[in-house]
């Protein structure tokens, strides 16, 4: 029996002394940690997705017809089908700009459900397989070969729409039958709903008269610049020498989204700061009340030989137990919330990157350290005051 009675067991019993007060403290810490875990999960996932999307574009610069910068972002970021064209001769003019290493292009063809084809409303992207460095790397990975004429590979969302999975299916596009031969990985861009075809097919599409596009037109030119070249200078050279185009830097493609997410993140962090301040205040207030309530007990303990570290030990165990319990529940709640939101928030639903188990463990560890740290910080001053207590002061008070 005697070995069960320790300073630690005393601390645990103190927590059970006022269950409602303990529950309120745990609830406050739970709220704070769950806000932290959710905010970190959201921000880290979105950031990783933006980085991946940007990397997958493969080009340093996107060149679009003047005034179509927004339309390009509509396609790349927001899944909005739109079309804009410029003359293919501009591809060579871009290629000749000093500092440009590789150039490729794509033509965006909008499909409308029920009008032209059997594929639901989506973007058909025709690309030049000889010069392409944007789609081809994925294509090699998924298909292991070039697309033949009459073949198409689809984005992850389109695959869902046309039930393409294990077997190849044929679909009507602009009056021609295309064999869907594969599905690309999710990119989180608008191109996830697109169907990719080789630009050899454009002539047939034009012959079928299903499109308003004229021969020799393209939508976007992708440029990769040479190593060591000044990106801004090349961008400026292109815009100055070719007035028919606008140039978008790769990292600016998601600028609007990044800005929106930045605002959302600020709201999260503000909520986090407020809940942290509230928790700190609550822990401080409750531990001040606890310290006042136990002044006599601590005085007796000190008179019986308790050192300052013994007093700290008792309170530290209480603080740690509260912090750990609150944090663990908070981590579980925050993680659950982030998983539920990932399925309901449209901004999260289309993200190509999910957090790895390791990242989630890291976020959990951060939540645990934060929750316990806030609890310890809040209790610091009341406990400091208590440990310095002169026993005589307590005895005289009686």
């Amino acid at each position, binding site marked *: *029996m005697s070995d069960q009675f320790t300073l630690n067991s005393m601390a645990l019993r103190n927590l059970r002394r006022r269950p409602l007060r303990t529950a309120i403290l745990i609830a406050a810490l739970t709220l704070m940690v769950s806000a932290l875990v959710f905010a970190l999960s959201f921000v880290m996932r979105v950031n990783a997705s933006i980085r991946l999307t940007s990397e997958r574009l493969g080009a340093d610069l996107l060149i679009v017809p003047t005034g179509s910068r927004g339309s390009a972002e509509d396609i790349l970021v927001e899944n909005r089908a739109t079309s804009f064209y410029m003359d293919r001769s501009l591809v060579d003019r871009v290629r000749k700009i000093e500092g440009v290493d590789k150039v490729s292009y794509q033509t965006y063809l909008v499909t409308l459900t029920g009008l032209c084809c059997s594929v639901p409303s989506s973007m058909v992207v025709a690309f030049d397989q000889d010069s392409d460095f944007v789609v081809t790397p994925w294509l090699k990975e998924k298909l292991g070969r070039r697309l033949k004429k009459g073949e198409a590979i689809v984005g992850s969302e389109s695959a869902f729409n046309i039930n393409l999975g294990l077997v190849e299916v044929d679909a009507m596009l602009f009056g021609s039958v295309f064999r869907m031969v594969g599905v690309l990985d999710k990119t989180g861009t608008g191109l996830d709903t697109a169907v990719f075809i080789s630009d050899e097919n454009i002539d047939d599409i034009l012959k079928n008269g299903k499109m308003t596009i004229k021969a020799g037109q393209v939508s976007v030119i992708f440029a990769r610049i040479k190593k060591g070249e000044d990106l801004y200078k090349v961008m400026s050279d292109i815009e100055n020498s070719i007035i028919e185009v606008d140039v978008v830097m790769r990292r600016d493609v998601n600028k609007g989204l990044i800005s929106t997410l930045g605002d959302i993140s600020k709201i999260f962090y503000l909520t986090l700061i407020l809940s942290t301040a509230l928790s700190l205040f609550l822990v401080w207030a409750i531990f001040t009340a606890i310290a006042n309530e136990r002044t006599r007990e601590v005085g007796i303990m000190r008179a*019986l*030989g308790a050192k300052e570290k013994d007093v700290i030990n008792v309170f530290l165990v209480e603080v740690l137990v509260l912090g750990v319990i609150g944090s663990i529940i908070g981590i579980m709640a925050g993680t659950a919330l982030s998983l539920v939101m990932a399925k309901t928030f449209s901004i999260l639903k289309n993200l190509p990157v999910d957090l790895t188990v390791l990242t989630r463990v890291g976020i959990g560890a951060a939540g645990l350290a934060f929750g316990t740290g806030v609890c310890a910080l809040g209790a610091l001053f009341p406990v400091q005051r208590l440990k310095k207590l002169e026993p005589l002061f307590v*005895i005289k008070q009686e």
Partner: protein
Amino acid sequence: MAQIIVQNVTKAYQVGAQTINAVSSVSLSVERGDFISIVGHSGSGKTTLLSLIGGITNPSSGSISFEDRDISSLTSDQLSEYRNEKIGFMFQFASLLPLLTVRENLLLPTLFSKGEPSREEPSSKAIDLIRMVGLADKIEAYPSQLSGGQQRRVAIARAFMNRPDVILADEPTGDLDEDTERDMMNFFLLMNRDAGITFIMVTHNSDLAKRSHRVIRMQQGSILGQ
């Protein structure tokens, strides 16, 4: 050689602009195995003198030595060790921790002892002591389940837990009925005689004071006579 030497000790408190000497220029010598009673009116400095000897507070001036060791110069932790190892306190008030059982209250001082105590010894000692104060059947009771007198007897038993050299008792029998008071005084005298424990006891009871070896009378912070 005296066990405790109090030399010209003053304990002053600042109350606003006024300085109050709770104990004023007190000198006292206590031999090992002494049984001393301190008597005097309320506010005469009895409890403060006991607290100074017990290292619960430090003197404003003067020195207190215990077995040739100046305790007024000890650090906070060293004073804690001193209180834990050498002194057994019986406070003026019910000093049990309400969350702990009688057994745990008795074991409390052992938690602060240096080193790892043997597992069985403190618990069996607690049982022995609680039997000696006549509360063997209350060993697992909580203070709230005890009367004031029973709580006082538990506090008395606790003072002996760490085999102290000196017991500092501040009106230890205040809540007890006459019979129990007599029993407790006999218990103190037994421990003083057989275990050689020094007793310094504050009391208002002149009959109890008469049974001690020496009576010290205090008034306004000073010793009037011994």
